C-alpha cells in the first residue's frame, strides 16, 4: 500500500540519482554545489521516509537528518569559500579539464 512516506522515499531516490549524476557531469562549480545539496536532500528523504514506511513517526532517523543538514551546510560553506577563492585567483568557475601531472 502506497503512503506518503513511500512517495517521499521514491522522490528521495530520484533526487539522489539526479543530484549525483549532476555532480559528476556539471562543470560549473556553483551548479555542482547546488547538485550536491539536491543529492543530500534526496538521501535525507530516504532516511526518514523509508524508516517511517509503516506510517509511524521514528525520532531516530529524524535526529540523524538534523545532523546531516548541518553537515551539508558546513560542506556547502567550505565549497563556496573555495569556489570564491578560485574565482578571485583565476577568474574561472570550473576546474581545468586535466591536471598538469
Amino acid at each position, binding site marked *: 500500500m502506497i503512503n506518503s512516506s513511500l512517495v517521499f522515499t521514491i522522490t528521495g*531516490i530520484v533526487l539522489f540519482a539526479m543530484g549525483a549524476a549532476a555532480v559528476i557531469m556539471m562543470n560549473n562549480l556553483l551548479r555542482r554545489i547546488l547538485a550536491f545539496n539536491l543529492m543530500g536532500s534526496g538521501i535525507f528523504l530516504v532516511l526518514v521516509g523509508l524508516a517511517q514506511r509503516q506510517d509511524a513517526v521514528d*525520532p*531516530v532517523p529524524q535526529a540523524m537528518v538534523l545532523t546531516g543538514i*548541518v553537515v551539508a551546510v*558546513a560542506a556547502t560553506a*567550505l565549497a563556496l569559500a573555495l569556489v570564491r577563492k578560485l574565482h578571485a585567483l583565476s577568474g574561472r568557475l570550473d576546474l581545468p579539464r586535466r591536471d598538469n601531472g
Partner: protein
Amino acid sequence: MKRWSVILAAIALSVALILAILELGPAGIDLRLPVAENMASSGVTHPVTAVLLNFRGYDTLLEVAVLLIALFGILAVGMEPLPSLVKPADPMLQRLARFACPLVIVAGVYLLWAGAFRPGGAFQAGALLAAAIVLLHLSGLWPGWGTPSWRQRLLLSGGFAVFLAVSVAMMGFGALLEYPQAYAGLLILLIESGLTLSLAAILAGLFLFLSRDTGGNP
C-alpha cells in the same frame, strides 16, 4: 558518451532501488520502543531532542566539530576583501532589520527553550539568531568579519568546548556523555545554551567571513 552513460546509470540505479524498497518487509528492530522506554530518564520530553542530545549525543558532538572544521577551512583559505557594494543599504531595509531583529532573537530563545518538550532546540535557535545577524549584515548594520580576534574565536568554539567538557566530565559516571539521571535535563540545557550561541556565531561566521564586505569603503 560519458554524459549518456552517467544518465543511464542514474536511471538504472533509481529504478532498481525503487523496485527493491517496494518489496521490503517490516524492519526487524523498532527503535521507537527503547526510545519510548527511556524517555523518562533522558531529561527532556521531546523524542527528537532526546535522541539528538542524549541517546545519540555523541553524533551531535562530532557534528559541531564538522561545523568548526568548515570554519577553520574557510579561514585557512583566506578570503580577500571585496570591493564594497555600490549602493549603500536601503534605509527602509535598515528600519525593517532593526524592527525584525529583536523579534528574531525572542523567537530564537523560545525555540531553544521549547526544544526540551516540543519541536525546536539549539540548532534551529542558533540558525535563527544567525539569520538575524546575516539580515543586519545585508542591511549594512553589521560589518563583515576579517581575521577573528581571540574573543571571537572563544565565542566560536565555546559551545563546542562546553559540550566536550560535559561529555568528558561524565566519564566520571561511567562513559562519555553518561548524564546522571537527576541532572540530565539541566546538563542538556547547559549544552544547548552554549551551542545556540556558538552555532549562531559559526553559522553567521560561515557567511560573514566569506562575505568580507566591511560595509564601508573598499
